[in-house]
């Protein structure tokens, strides 16, 4: 499913919305999460999961083509952790203990 499919599905399920509004709703959700991450904030969505940043320290890497050593700067990586509800939805009837 692509974002366009998602917008279409939402427009079907919410007939009070115009096509354009459905598009704005979907875009606003992901833009909000993106902006929150950019501010270094995490987003917790009950029943879905949470988005936060993981920090990668700078490290020595190599140019795979030349073998030359280069410094890879530290950076922030977006990270998603699925919530309990998703885990249960994908693994019905599972009583397995919560192990990572």
């Amino acid at each position: 499913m692509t974002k366009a499919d998602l917008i279409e599905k939402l427009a079907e399920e919410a007939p009070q919305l115009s096509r354009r509004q459905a598009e704005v709703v979907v875009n606003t959700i992901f833009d909000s999460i993106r902006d929150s991450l950019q501010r270094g904030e995490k987003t917790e969505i009950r029943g879905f999961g949470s988005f936060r940043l993981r920090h990668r320290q700078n490290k020595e890497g190599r140019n795979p083509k030349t073998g030359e050593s280069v410094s890879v700067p530290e950076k922030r990586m977006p990270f998603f952790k699925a919530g309990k509800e998703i885990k249960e939805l994908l693994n019905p009837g599972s009583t397995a203990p919560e192990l990572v």
Partner: protein
Amino acid sequence: MRKADIAETICETAGVQKTDSMELVEKVLDIIKSMLQKGEVVKIAGFGNFVVRSKGERKGRNPRTGEEIAITPRRVVTFRPSQLLKKHVNS
């Protein structure tokens, strides 16, 4: 940030009532969840992809007792951020 904050922004951007906007956020999330349940990839351009992966059985340990136990096969959701999102959070 929480769901209510997203809903509030939607009121402004999409021009809908507060009560409606919360419901719309839930609807979008439900659509995504039902796709993942079917094992489908959800691709959000400019944001990232949600992918379902199947993991086989593996051995783990109870971290408290050190006891070895089997971790049952399961399906997990992984999120692969797009290049654009990665760029955004580092700008």
